[in-house]
């Protein structure tokens, strides 16, 4: 399936991947991050059970240096 992550189209193997599995795939495990799916925030507690669908738009954000 294809989803958009941070504005970029990404091809993922298999259907029904969860956000947890995606985080692992992206080497982001253990990082403090927040996820928005199709404009709605997905609480971290729901990463394990939230499945992705073809065409989903994800924003994955973190904290960086800024003033």
């Amino acid at each position, binding site marked *: 399936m294809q989803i958009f992550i941070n504005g970029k189209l990404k091809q993922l193997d298999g259907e029904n991947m969860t956000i947890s599995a995606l985080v692992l795939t*992206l*080497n982001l495990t253990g990082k403090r991050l927040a996820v928005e799916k199709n404009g709605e*925030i997905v609480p971290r507690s729901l990463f394990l059970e939230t499945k992705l669908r073809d065409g989903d738009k994800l924003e994955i*954000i*973190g*904290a*960086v240096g*800024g*003033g």
Partner: protein
Amino acid sequence: MNEHLIIAGKAYHSRLLVGTGKYKDFTETRAAIDASGAQIVTVAIRRVNIGQTAGEPSLLEYLPPEEFTYLPNTAGCYSADDAVRTLRLARELLDGHKLVKLEVLGDPKTLYPNVIETIAAAKVLVKDGFDVMVYTSDDPIIAKQLEEIGCCAVMPLASLIGSGMGILNPWNLQIIIENAKIPVLVDAGVGCAGDAAIAMELGCDGVLMNTAIAAARDPIMMAGAMKKAIEAGRESFLAGRMPKKLYSASPSSPTSGMIG
């Protein structure tokens, strides 16, 4: 001196708030923040780097949340909607953290704030339960309106973000301070320790800065200078300055007992 800056019900002994951008690396960031004595540090909210290698260091590892109060900002947002969206994500990122810095910009060239969008965003965020420290222009009417909306601190600019031009309109800041019942912090434009001291002498409750420290030749030494300037300026304000006179017929040394 045993007096604290109170923001949203929490007491801070440091009146210097610092940004975490523009440093050479995270080690320098941490060393400068330690030298500044700041307890509140701003962070920006951005898309994570997809395709990073596992174990890449992150800012938050260098500034643990147990040691610092984070102030997630909306830097780079040009609309109320973008700012609100960013801070809701920040709240999720930081486990329900409510204290935020709202800034909505109006122009990419000058980074001048758009106060109309700022007011719109402030209304939504306050209603949504955020403690909003709000960056704004030095317009006293807008500052008062932001207070009335329910912001927990108002943060007028001294001059434009990253300009280092210092305090361009001390008179407006003075009016804002006189009218405010919430903390007033100068945010943006401070260039050197003298500027920070002047802001505090005007009666500001604190100063937020980033570039003045990060872009100094020696950021760590400048961070220490800023800490002292904030403390000196605060004490100078509390002590109450002598009145200004064009000249004085009252010399500091006795006029009697002269030799000869």
